[in-house]
């Protein structure tokens, strides 16, 4: 038996597999032993009440799906009273994901949710559905720094910040998050996309645009994780298209300390259990005794480009 436990900053997890926010809820206890997971990440909540976006809210694409759920919310009181308690009974660390419209709202909400029964605050500063054309805090280092430091000033809880693949310079954004005091980076959210029904000519989502997730985006998410890994020292939690143990390993090799599984659960609500089993099998097969030692262990051959160039130079 390999040791699957990992550390994300000061938090120890029995294994690196946790759900991605919005792709998990207590109902999965019917399909999954929630006490087996590394952590339980709940759907984002916003302090403001919202209904969410118009239906249809999902559409499938090649190897993935678009969603424009939005963040339906009944506010923090309701959440604390009616939502949170169900998740705290499994002995598994609970991660509360917060979404908000302004820096102050974010900071207030994170402070308010820094409860003893909550292990981690995850700030979803990247949801592409709520701002015009997908703009979000995490689109620029600036706004990332502002919102993260404001939150940091208000909570002593472990605090992760979830970035968006839509940002063009992820290393700078990740560095801003690190400097502003985030304990870890979740990389990342969905990528803004769109689909049109060519018979009706209508957008397939009521909201016109939505977030792309699933295996289709895996190579992009993996690249972002690796770029973050090269840019910062805080741990990274990989997310985007993970649907097998091999995918999880790939993210760890690229630099992730843990992973989040989103869309894959919709195709098999028991997938996270299978991924954990698969990690164990991989470690046994490959002779890995401590899974956490794989983080960042992609074999990069730093001389390769030089060697190639010298080699190629011979050609006429």
């Amino acid at each position, binding site marked *: 038996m390999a040791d699957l436990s990992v550390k994300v900053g000061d938090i120890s997890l029995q294994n690196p597999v946790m759900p991605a926010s919005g792709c998990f*809820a207590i109902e999965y206890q019917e*399909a999954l032993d929630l006490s087996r997971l590394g952590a339980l990440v709940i759907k984002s909540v916003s302090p403001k009440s919202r209904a*969410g976006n118009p239906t249809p809210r*999902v*559409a*499938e694409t090649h190897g993935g799906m678009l969603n424009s759920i939005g963040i339906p919310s009944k506010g923090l009181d309701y959440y604390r009273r009616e939502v949170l308690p169900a998740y705290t009974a499994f002995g598994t660390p609970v991660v509360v994901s917060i979404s908000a419209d302004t820096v102050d709202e974010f900071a207030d909400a994170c402070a308010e949710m820094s409860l003893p029964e909550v292990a981690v605050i995850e700030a979803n500063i990247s949801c592409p559905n709520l701002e015009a054309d997908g703009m979000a805090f995490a689109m620029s280092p600036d706004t990332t720094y502002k919102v993260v430091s404001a939150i940091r000033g208000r909570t002593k809880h472990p605090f992760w910040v979830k970035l968006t693949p839509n940002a063009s310079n992820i290393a700078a954004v990740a560095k801003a998050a690190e400097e502003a005091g985030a304990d870890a980076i979740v990389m990342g959210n969905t990528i803004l996309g769109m689909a049109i029904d060519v018979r009706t000519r209508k957008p397939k989502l009521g909201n016109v645009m939505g977030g792309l997730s699933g295996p289709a985006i895996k190579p992009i998410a993996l690249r972002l994780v690796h770029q973050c890994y090269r840019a910062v020292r805080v741990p990274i939690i990989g997310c985007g298209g993970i649907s097998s143990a091999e995918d999880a390993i790939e993210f760890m090799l690229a630099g992730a300390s843990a992973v989040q599984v989103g*869309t894959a*659960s*919709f195709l098999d*609500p028991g997938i996270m259990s299978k991924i954990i089993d698969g990690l164990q099998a991989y470690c046994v097969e490959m002779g890995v005794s401590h899974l956490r030692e794989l983080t960042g262990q992609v074999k990069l051959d730093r001389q390769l480009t030089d060697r190639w160039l010298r080699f190629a130079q011979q050609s006429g």
Partner: protein
Amino acid sequence: MESSVCAAPFAATVATHRCEVAEHRWVNSRYRYLRLESTADLAGTTRSGQFYQLRCPTTNALQPFLLRPMSVYGVGPASGSIEFLYNVTGVGTASLATLEVGSSMEIVGPLGNTFEFDPSFKRVMVVARGVGLATMAPLLRDAGQAGVAVTALMSARSPGDLMRDEFLRGVEADVHSVFDSDGSSAVENVEKLLRELIERQQPDVVYTCGSHRLLMLLQRVLADFPQVRGEVAMEQRMACGMGVCLSCVRMFDTPTGKHFKRVCREGPVFPIREVVGEVEFG
């Protein structure tokens, strides 16, 4: 002694079941019948009105990504036997239609709530159109077994589309059929028929599925028969099918006010009176 809470091994009530295709054929030019066999006790755990999510096969031409929600058309007699009746419309159902007998496929479930059926009912009425009959067929069986009388109002494009035998499956019923092809399915006509039948037969409950128009009509008619309950099985785009993703919401007008509910979880069966005849979005 170990604490019994900790020692209780986890047992999934919703699971992915690997099944073998035991029977698969066209019922008419648009609908197909599919029977699967699994080693799990699907018959024992699945109730009328529930649905499964089907992992449709992936082929070079057709690559559905999400699972497809399908009502259970029947279960048993073998405990692992489950039946579906489906309309070939898009990518997923087209790929489903390519499945050969003997091949395997996965289904996730059982999902959703159930029709409320009470064996002490005297008479139930079912109002079905199209594939809605797949959803309600298990109800007819429940009624037949409990000796509850059944009135069936069936609506179809034409007599060839009716699937009367597929619906009744041997259960005796007072059947009334209306068709688009001869104009008998026109709203005024159906409304008259419904009112007459309800007035005369006083069913305990009216169930419906498969037509928004019939649903809206029933809501109006039932307003005049407060003693008759009404239930409808609804559809909505789904991703998770388990209440997790919030994609499948519709608004309902409940005793505590208007609320969004998840069709996959609080539904698919809802009181007819609570349906909000929402404008279509998107």
